[in-house]
């Protein structure tokens, strides 16, 4: 008997009963032009209006066939609430932050009404709307940025990393410590609004920092976040991270969403017994530029390797063909294989 998408995805999240086939869920955005066209909902409206945000997320479930809904498409919701100027983009462009209000590393002023700031409220309202309309039918995934990524937004990535390189540890730690409560408050609020699981984007990738800096500066905060938030968290770190998988597994987070460059088999063999794995169809060459057959093959490779939940590796390019997204679902429908 076919499982419901919700039970399939939740079961996979906890590495529970396998059911009829692997789950397909998206910790990051799967919005593409064709989904916008078919729903009549576009950017930037879908970043700013909770109903549009939620209805576009539902399209990922109802039209693309994913077992989940994920309504937050930008990485800038918290940054906007903390005072960054955001260009919310248009149908061809994701939002971007235009300034770095704390480039001088002064103390971060977290607004008392953080959760009522429009860019946060819109996500919380969208999640509540999703709970009402697809709760128990599809897995509702929230998304929050971690202190490391927020520090990039506050100080500027290069400026922040330069301080790390210069060994300005006190300065770096103070900023991270001041941002962590923002992450925790937003995570808890998304769970209270109705999220089943929340993605935590915190971009301490090998492309940017050493595993040593992750271990010293961020892992202790990740452990606190995992302890202070009751719901399951999916850690998402873009890029190649194979040199720090063991460290991720010590965070206490339930799951890890990884990119193609990490390698499905390597992720499964290294930490698959300690974290649920979400991954890892390549965005640039396969989903965006490849054929449905290419996508199907790569999704099957992830399934055969033992990845728990199949999905794109990160937010997809907006011009990704919808049929390529559907090819991930088609690959999952073939079942678990060996």
């Amino acid at each position: 008997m076919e499982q419901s998408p919700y039970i399939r995805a939740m079961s996979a999240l906890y590495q529970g009963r396998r059911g009829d086939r692997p789950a397909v869920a998206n910790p990051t955005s799967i919005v593409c032009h064709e989904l916008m066209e078919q729903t009549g909902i576009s950017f930037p409206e879908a970043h700013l209006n909770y109903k549009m945000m939620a209805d576009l997320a539902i399209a990922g479930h109802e039209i693309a066939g994913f077992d989940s809904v994920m309504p937050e498409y930008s990485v800038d919701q918290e940054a906007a609430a903390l005072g960054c100027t955001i260009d919310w983009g248009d149908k061809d462009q994701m939002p971007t932050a235009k300034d770095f209000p704390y480039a001088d590393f002064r103390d971060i002023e977290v607004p008392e009404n953080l959760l009522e700031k429009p860019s946060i409220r819109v996500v919380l309202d969208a999640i509540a709307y999703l709970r009402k309309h697809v709760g128990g039918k599809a897995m509702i995934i929230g998304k929050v940025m971690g202190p490391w990524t927020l520090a990039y937004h506050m100080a500027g990535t290069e400026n922040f990393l330069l301080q790390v390189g210069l060994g300005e540890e006190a300065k770096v730690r103070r900023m991270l410590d001041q941002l962590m409560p923002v992450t925790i408050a937003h995570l808890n609020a998304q769970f209270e609004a109705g999220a089943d699981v929340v993605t935590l984007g915190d971009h301490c990738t090998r492309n940017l920092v050493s595993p040593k800096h992750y271990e010293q500066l961020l892992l202790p905060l990740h452990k606190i976040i995992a302890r202070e938030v009751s719901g399951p968290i999916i850690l998402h770190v873009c890029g190649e991270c194979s040199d720090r998988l063991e460290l991720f597994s010590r965070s206490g987070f339930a799951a890890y969403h990884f990119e193609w460059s990490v390698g499905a088999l390597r992720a499964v063999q290294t930490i698959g017994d300690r974290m649920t794995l979400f991954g890892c169809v390549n965005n640039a060459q396969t989903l965006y530029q490849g054929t449905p057959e290419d996508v199907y093959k790569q999704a099957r490779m992830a399934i055969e390797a033992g990845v728990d939940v199949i999905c794109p590796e990160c937010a997809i390019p907006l011009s990704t063909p919808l049929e390529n997204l559907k090819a991930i679902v088609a690959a999952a429908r073939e079942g678990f294989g060996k």
Partner: protein
Amino acid sequence: MHELLIKINDAVQKRQQAELVPSIEAAIEAGLNPKAIIDDGLIAAMDVVGSEFSDGIIFVPEMLVSAMLMKQGLKLIKPLIAGGSDEKKGKVLIGTVKGDLHDIGKNIVVMLLEGAGFEVVDLGVDLSVDQVVKKVAELKPQIVGLSALLTTTMPEMQKTIAALTESGFRDQVKVMVGGAPLNQAFADSIGADGYAKDAAEAVSLARRMVSA
């Protein structure tokens, strides 16, 4: 190599901030050729730093500190070069494409290209196709470098190359592309002349492009 050049090289390579300026001042006082201080001290150090970065021995924070030290060193020495005119290897116009504000990778490429003797015009981030075409017309570079970190902004590279073709400038410049989500196949598919997987490789590619 002179002991002071080794000290300068070490200061940049090993990120010994306190050592750099006194070593350069001592080298100048000792009458060492300013060109040798740049080539054997600073640029040679950055070549090693670039390789260590490519090999995953160091990461962006360490690279940024070395690059900052190299710049400090260049600032001290350049005025001493006769007439202040050191010969440039070529002109590179570089930027991050529309919709993408990620500029660390691009900035590191800029630093290494400058260190390697190229004249670099950094157009910044979030570059529209029209801005690129306008600047190519105005500045007539040999190379245009385009960077993207996001898979969501990669399509902008193709649009930029198409616009260079439509405006008649395509055969006057070499286009090199780079950024975390890219690879050679993508570069080929959009008609770029070259792809570099990291900053050190971008310098080698630029050298090949201007000598071709």
